[in-house]
C-alpha cells in the first residue's frame, strides 16, 4: 500500500496553508521522523515529518503553493517493493476522482479554548471551498469570484455584484479586496463577525489621493486585527493600575546573575543564565495567579474554565505584527528555565517558526513596553484569557518611605481584566499580589 501524505492541520481552525518548501525530491528515501516539507500559515512556519518510511513517489503539490487545503493530498510515498511510478500514477488518479474524505477534527481542545460554533468545525475540516460551500450557497457569484473571495477571506454577502443581473464577478471581489476588505473576514463570519468597517470610500474621501498610498495587509495583520476587534467588542475590559518598587527585585536579579555558574561551550565560556527583569515578571505573574486562583480563569457562556496552571503568554514583536508565545506552567519553572525558554521562543517567533501550540491558549499574558520608556499603558486581552499585565518602564521616581521622600526604582503595572470572569475586587487582589511578589522577590525563588 502506498502512503499518502496530506496537508496537516496546524491548528483546529486552520483551513489552508502554504506549502513553502519541499525538503525531499521524488525518488528520495525517507524514514519516519525525517523532515520532508515546510508549511506556512499566517502565523508560523512548521516542519512536516514523515510518519512512515518509503520512497517519495510523487510530490503532488509543488513547493510554493499557497492555500493548500487541509487534508488534501500533498505527496505519496511508495512502500518497500512498490513501483514508485505506479504508485504516483494511482495516487494522482485517485486524488482527482474521489474527494478527499472529510477528516476528523483533530486536536480538538488544544489551541483556542473559545467556544467554537458548530459550523466552524466543518469549515475547518478541509471542505473543497469552505467559504463558498458553507456560507455562500445561494449567492449569485461566478466560480472564480467565489474562489477569490474565499482565498481573500472576504464574505461574498458583503459584496455587490456588477455582472449581468447583479452577478458577483472577479472584478467585484478584486474591488472589495482593494478597498481593504470592508466585508467581514470569513473566519470571523463563523460566529463573531465584527461589524463591517465604516464605508472605506468615505474614509478615503477625506484624504487627497496624492497624499497617501495603500499597502495591502499581510495575513498576520488581518488575524491581529480580527482578534483584537473581537476581543475589544466582546470582552468588557476594565483596568487596575499599581506602582511597584523594583529596588529589591533589581538587587536580587543582579545577585542571581552574579552567582550564575560559568559553563564552558565551544564558542568559549559563558554564564549558565542571564535573567532579565521580564523573566522575573513572567514568574511573578505566574505565582500571583497561583495565589489568586479565582483570577486564573477563562469565560465560557456555559461555565467558567478554572485553570490549574499559570500558562503565561508574552507579547513579542515580530516583523509585521506581534505574537504571544506561551511559557506553560510558569509557576513551577525556575527563573533560569523561564529565561532559557523565553530566549528560544523569541528567536523562533522572529523567524516565524513557532508551532501553533506554542502560541495558542495561555491563561494570562504579559506585555512589557518598559524598554520603550513607557510609563504605563493598558493592553487588550488576548482571548481566551481573562487578564493581561501591561508593564511600564522601571524608572527613578520620588516616593515616600518611612515618612520621607526618597528616590526609588518604580514600575507601573496595569492589569486589564475581563469583567465577566474577574470582578473589580478580584482584579485588585491579583494586582496587589503581583506587587507584593515584585517587592518581596524571594517568593520567585521558591
Amino acid at each position, binding site marked *: 500500500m502506498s502512503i499518502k501524505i496530506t496537508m496537516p492541520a496546524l491548528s483546529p481552525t486552520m483551513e489552508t496553508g502554504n506549502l513553502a518548501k519541499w525538503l525531499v525530491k521524488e525518488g528520495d528515501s525517507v524514514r519516519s521522523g525525517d523532515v520532508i516539507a515546510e508549511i506556512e500559515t499566517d502565523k508560523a512556519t512548521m516542519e512536516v515529518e514523515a510518519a512512515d518510511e518509503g520512497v517519495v513517489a510523487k510530490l503532488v503539490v509543488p513547493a*510554493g*503553493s499557497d492555500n493548500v487545503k487541509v487534508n488534501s493530498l500533498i505527496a505519496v510515498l511508495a512502500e518497500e517493493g512498490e513501483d514508485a511510478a505506479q504508485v504516483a500514477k494511482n495516487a494522482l488518479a485517485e*486524488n*482527482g476522482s474521489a474527494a478527499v474524505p472529510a477528516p476528523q477534527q483533530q486536536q480538538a481542545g488544544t489551541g483556542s479554548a473559545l467556544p467554537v460554533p458548530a459550523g466552524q468545525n466543518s469549515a475547518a475540516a478541509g471542505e473543497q471551498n469552505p467559504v463558498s460551500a458553507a456560507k455562500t450557497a445561494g449567492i449569485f457569484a461566478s*466560480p*472564480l469570484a467565489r474562489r477569490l473571495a474565499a482565498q481573500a477571506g472576504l464574505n461574498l454577502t458583503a459584496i455587490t455584484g*456588477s455582472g449581468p443581473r*447583479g452577478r458577483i*464577478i*472577479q472584478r467585484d471581489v478584486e474591488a472589495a479586496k482593494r478597498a481593504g476588505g470592508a466585508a467581514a473576514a470569513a473566519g470571523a463570519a463563523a460566529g463573531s463577525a465584527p461589524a463591517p468597517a465604516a464605508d472605506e470610500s468615505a474614509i478615503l474621501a477625506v484624504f487627497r489621493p496624492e497624499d497617501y498610498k495603500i499597502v495591502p495587509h499581510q495575513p498576520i495583520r488581518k488575524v491581529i486585527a480580527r482578534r483584537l476587534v473581537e476581543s475589544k467588542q466582546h470582552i468588557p475590559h476594565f483596568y487596575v493600575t499599581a506602582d511597584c518598587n523594583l529596588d529589591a527585585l533589581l538587587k536580587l536579579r543582579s545577585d542571581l546573575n552574579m552567582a550564575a555558574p560559568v559553563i564552558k561551550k565551544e564558542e568559549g565560556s559563558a554564564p549558565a543564565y542571564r535573567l532579565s527583569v521580564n523573566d522575573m515578571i513572567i514568574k511573578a505573574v505566574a505565582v500571583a495567579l497561583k495565589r489568586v486562583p479565582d483570577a486564573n480563569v477563562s469565560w465560557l457562556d456555559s461555565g467558567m474554565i478554572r485553570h490549574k496552571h499559570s500558562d503565561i503568554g508574552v507579547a513579542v514583536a515580530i516583523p509585521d505584527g506581534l505574537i504571544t508565545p506561551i511559557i506553560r506552567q510558569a509557576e513551577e519553572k525556575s527563573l533560569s528555565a523561564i529565561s532559557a525558554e523565553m530566549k528560544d521562543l523569541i528567536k523562533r517567533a522572529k523567524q516565524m517558526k513557532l508551532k501553533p501550540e506554542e502560541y495558542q491558549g495561555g491563561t494570562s499574558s504579559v506585555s512589557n513596553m518598559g524598554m520603550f520608556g513607557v510609563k504605563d499603558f493598558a493592553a487588550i486581552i488576548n482571548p481566551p484569557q481573562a487578564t493581561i499585565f501591561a508593564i511600564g518602564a522601571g524608572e527613578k521616581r520620588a516616593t515616600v518611605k518611612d515618612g520621607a521622600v526618597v528616590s526609588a526604582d518604580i514600575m507601573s503595572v496595569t492589569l486589564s481584566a475581563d469583567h465577566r470572569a474577574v470582578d473589580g475586587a478580584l482584579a485588585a487582589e491579583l494586582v496587589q499580589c503581583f506587587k507584593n511578589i515584585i517587592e518581596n522577590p524571594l517568593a520567585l525563588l521558591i
Partner: protein
Amino acid sequence: MVYDIIIIGSGPGGYVTAIRAAQLGFKTAIIEREHLGGICLNWGCIPTKALLRSAEIKHFCENAKDYGLTLSGKVAVDNSAVIARSRAVSARLNAGVGYLMKKNKIDVIWGEARLQGQKNGQTQIEVHKPLKPAYQPQHPVPKTVLGEGVYEARHVILATGARPRALPGIEPDGKFIWTYFEAMVPPKLPKSLIIMGSGAIGVEFASFYRDMGAEVTIIELMPQILPVEDSEISAFARKQLERRGIRIMTSAKVIKVEKGADSVTAHVESSGKVETITADRLIAAVGVQGNIENLGLEALGVKTGRGCIITDEWSRTNIAGIYAIGDVAGAPMLAHKAEEEGVICVEKLADLPDIHPLDKSKIPGCTYCRPQIASVGLTEKKAQEAGYDIRIGRYSFAANGKAVALGEDQGLVKVIFDNKTGRLLGAHMVGAEVTELIQGFVVAMNLETTEEELMHTVFPHPTLSEMMKESVLDAYGRVLNA
C-alpha cells in the same frame, strides 16, 4: 434632419453598431463610401475564408485515397472560378448588410464623410464624392441611399477601419508588390510568391497559395511566425507549414525589393547575411494602419496616435460627441472586437445599466491556415511576465478519437491556469477546426469558471472538443486518455 447617431464606415464595427443603436431607439444613419460590410465582408475575413475553403477542398481531393476513395485525373484549379466564388460569397453578405439596414430603418448615406464642425451640441458632417476610386470589382451600390450633403448628429461614431500598411521603399504597386486586395483577386496564379509578414493575413495567404501550387517563402521580422501567438503553438504551426513545403525565414528583414520583367527579387537580411530571393510576386502583409486621414479630425482637434484615434474605455475621443470603434481605434484589429466595442459604445450612450468596458484580455484570435490556429487570453510567456504562478495542460490531437477518425491527428491544445486561483488565463490551439472550438474556452473565461467547472462539464464523444477537457485535466495531473 438631425440624427441621434451617425456612424461613419459600415464595416463589422459600423453596421453592427448601427443595428444596436436602432434597436435602442436611436435615430441612426450610417455613411459608407465604398462597400457595405467594410473590409471584413468585402476584402477581409469573408472572401479569404471562401478562398481557403477552395484550397481545403483541393487538399481533400488530392488526399482522397487516404480515405479509400479513388478520384481519376488530377484536381485542376480554375483560378477565375475560385475567385468568382469568393466574390459571390462576399456579394451575398454585402447585400445582406443592405437588407439589415433597411430592416432596422437605418439611413444609408453614400459618399465619403468629413467632420465639419460642432455647434448647438451637434456635429456637422459633410458627405462628398470619394477622393479615391473604390477597389474593383466593387459590389453594386444599394438602391435606396441618401446622397452628398451635410448631415447632423448628436453623436458621431467613427468606424472607418484600416488599410494595408506600406513600408517605405517597398510600397505596393498592385502589380508585383501586392496587398491583400490584389492577393484576393489574382489575374493568374503566381508560381512563386514571397510573403512579407507572418501575421494572420500573411500566413492565411501563404497557406492558400501553397495549396494552389505556388512556391511560398514567408519572411518574418520577429523570431517566430504569428508573433502574437504562444510560442509553442507558433513552433508547432511552423513545422506543419514547413512540412507542406512553405519556406519560413524568421528574424529576417526585407531590406530591398527589385522588380524584374515579370518577377520581384527581395533582398533579405538575416543573422548578418543578405540573401536574394526571386519570385513572381510579393505580398506585403506587414500590418494595417487606421483610416484617419481626410476625416476632419484636425478641424475638431480629435487626438490620434500611432495611426489610430485615441479613445477611452467607452470609445470616447477627447472631443465630446465623437467616438471611435474598430480598427481605427486600435488593436486588436479584429472584426469581432470592432462589433463588441461599438455595441458597448451605444449601450453606454443609451445609459443601460450594468455596462462594462470591453475586456480585451478575453478576445479570441483565429488564423484559418492549415493547420488552423486559435487562441484566447495570455500566452505562457505573457502569463509569466505578468507574474502568475502558472499551471499548464496540453493535449495532442494524436490521442483524440475524432481527430484520428478525421485523419487530422496533428495538433495541440494548450491551457494555462493561474495556479493560485484556478482561473483560466489562456487557451491556445493548433489543428483542424480549432477556430470553431475556441469559443468554448471563451465562454468559460467570460463566465469565470475555474478548472473545477471545466472538469465537471460533460463534453460530447467523439468530438475534437474532448481535447479541451483533457487539456484541463492534464493541467491538474488528471489526464485520462494520454
